[in-house]
């Protein structure tokens, strides 16, 4: 077990930012940590890195509650991140490595190696202020890799990156996974999470609302039937377990059915009522939709 969070609560004065939260990350996993802005993601990650103390509960890194020691094996990219503008790229990568306990000479060698690997050797001696925003962000990411962390915690790593760099980062995370690294990252861009993650943890208002794989999420998700018909489907209400009919677009309706209802019976009811069925099937929920459902986000928040 790389990370284990047990019944952690965090209060700021009267405000409860994280409430009785438990989840864990196993070795070699890529776990997505999802939630709206203000859901408590950053606070949770700060507690894992021992930047903030927990109010109650416990956090274990690599099976130990000594986070001071454990965090030296973690590469942490905070959501709010920046670099010394006057420092050279190579020096900054080496410096953050040294802070994690890598000896001076080795840190510099590793920094060179990282720059080379990501094709940025030409920027090694440039000051950060002369780099483009995208390049500065790459330097930032490299600076959390200097100490060859076994576990990466990335808080909103995709925010602020253009699509090309988002793709690069996605590839990088994939590469790291192939090398056996464990990754926990928070995001509200569901497509990245869907492509990369083995499992998800979703929180809302500081509480966990879901933990599991995407298939489990889909199972837990209250499924709806999508019916396409030019007719008025309202007579279906109350028949064959249909509890609600929601129009979702031109001649398309989402039918919510009570638990244990038979899809076949709903179809039969349609035919019986003379409703023309142009298409009929289970809704294939994307993570995006599941997220909205669980995390209760309005469309505009998560775009």
């Amino acid at each position, binding site marked *: 077990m790389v990370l284990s969070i047990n019944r952690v609560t965090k209060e*700021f004065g009267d405000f409860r930012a994280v409430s009785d939260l438990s989840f864990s990350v196993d070795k070699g996993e890529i776990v997505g940590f999802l939630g709206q802005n203000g859901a408590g993601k950053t606070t949770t990650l700060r507690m894992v890195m*021992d930047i903030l*103390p927990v109010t109650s509960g416990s956090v274990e890194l690599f099976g130990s509650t000594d986070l*001071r020691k454990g*965090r030296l094996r973690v590469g942490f990219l905070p959501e709010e991140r920046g670099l010394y503008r*006057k420092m050279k790229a190579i020096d900054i990568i080496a410096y*953050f490595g040294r802070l994690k306990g890598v000896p001076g000479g080795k840190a510099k060698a590793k920094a060179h190696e990282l720059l080379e690997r990501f094709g940025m050797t030409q920027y090694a001696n440039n000051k950060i202020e002369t780099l483009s925003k995208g390049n500065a962000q790459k330097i930032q990411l490299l600076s959390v890799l200097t100490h060859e962390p076994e576990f990466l915690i990335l808080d909103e790593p995709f925010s602020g990156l253009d699509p090309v760099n988002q793709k690069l980062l996605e590839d990088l995370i994939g590469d790291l996974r192939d090398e056996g690294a464990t990754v926990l990252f928070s995001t509200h861009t569901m497509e990245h999470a869907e492509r990369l993650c083995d499992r998800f943890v979703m929180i809302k208002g500081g509480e966990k609302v879901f933990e599991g794989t995407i298939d489990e999420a889909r199972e837990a998700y209250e499924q709806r039937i999508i019916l396409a018909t030019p007719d008025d489907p309202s007579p279906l209400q109350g028949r064959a377990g249909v509890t609600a009919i929601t129009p979702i677009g031109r001649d398309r309706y989402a039918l919510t059915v009570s638990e244990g209802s038979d899809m076949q019976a709903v179809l039969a009811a349609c035919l019986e009522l003379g409703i023309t069925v142009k298409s009929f099937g289970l809704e294939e929920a994307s993570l995006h939709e599941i997220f909205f459902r669980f995390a209760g986000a309005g469309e505009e928040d998560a775009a």
Partner: protein
Amino acid sequence: MRGIFEIVSHEYRRYIFTRGFLLFLLIIPVMSLLGASASFLQDATKAAKTFVLIDRDGGWADVVDEALEEQHQRAIIGRWDDFVMGLTASGLVDAEALEPPFAPGPVDAERREAFFAAGGLAEGRRRLAALTSMELPPLEEPRRDFRRIDPLVEIAPDADDQAIGTAYLPYMRGEKEIPGGGRLTAVVVIPEGYGAEDGPNAVYLTDNMADDELRAFLRGVFREKLRNDAFVARGLSVEDVAAINALSPGLSKVKAGSSAEDEAQRLRDTIEFGLPLGLTYILFFVVLSVGSMMLTNTIEEKSNKIVEMLLSSVSASQLMIGKLIGLALVGVTPMVIFAGLGFALISILGAGNEVLATLKEVMLASPLVPLFFFYFLLGYLLYASIYLAIGALCSSIQDAQSLSTPLTIIMLLPAPFIMSVIEDPNGLFARIFTWIPFYTHYALMLRLSGSPPLWEILGATAMLIVVVAMMLTFMGRIYRAGILQAGGNANWKTFFAAARAPKGEKVR
């Protein structure tokens, strides 16, 4: 510990290994060189101040000319003495081997006459050359300070001051040429009956009210002439008057406990008095500049969002301690470099120079230098911890101003009282400032040469140590509460609220 070490080395290197710091190191020697050469340059470029004397009383032109000549002769002998002493100090010649009137010493009328009768500078140089095999450096006569020229304009004998001034103004403003070039500095009008009791005043007409050198010189000449005449009129002989004028009793300043004959000790006392002044000035300057470095540095880490990266590897306390130590070293480095360079220079150049040798001795032997570093540390920690806390609450320098300006005012507040502390190191102001922690370290440095009571030194220092410890704790709380907080308006209310924030809301 490792984390602290990394922070210290990072903070140190980012200030010391920069072009700015090298420039700073260069500026000080360049400035002191400029300062030293300024008087020399001024001397070399200064033109004699030219004036016209309108004498309606009679006989004054000769008096003035004689005084001008005497002043110039004194200047020549003064330059000669400096020349010989300089060569003696560097071990090239021995001043004692020179015979009067060429041996350096006080300049009286007798020596002056003998000096120029014997052949002046040229003869002195010849005799000096005979004493050494070395090629002597060049020596020139000093320029004249003042020059009298004949009236340039026909002036009616009854013209008033305004008419005379108006007539000469073009010469003073450089609109008309004067013989010998340059501008006319002044016109001096001596009325008939000048110097009689209730008689009229002489008038000094000038276009440059700021420069009083010529006026002061002439005033001295006139006063001496009038007094001498008065003495003679009351029955003294000319010789008596000269003897009276030559009276100049000495009054040596000797620190109680030393001997007046012990020249070396007297020099040492003077240095021991002057040194703390200089050191206090440096103390103030360094604490202020390193403190503001701390402020901008902390604001940078907060506004550029670097701090969370740091805090994922080191604790907030480690970060704070590392920054405090790193910047303290930054403050100490130039002092150590200059002290080392100065020491080397003194050791090399000061071989024959008594003042420099004594300065070196005092710096090595007296507790002032170690005490200076001790008080630097305390004063620095006091101010830097406040700057650190302010920086943690602000995301820009503009933001910080409402908090940092009062601190600067507090620092500068005692400036008007510094003279009274220096003049009376055990007086009321000195004692009051000793017991205000913000000023304890300055006040004690200034007072040390005045032998304040030991209990005051120890008591005030102990109090300062306690206050510094409390400040570090208190400001540390603010730093930990503020450093990860997003923006917001920084003011004294948020400042103290941050200190009161419960532990759970603070960064570890």
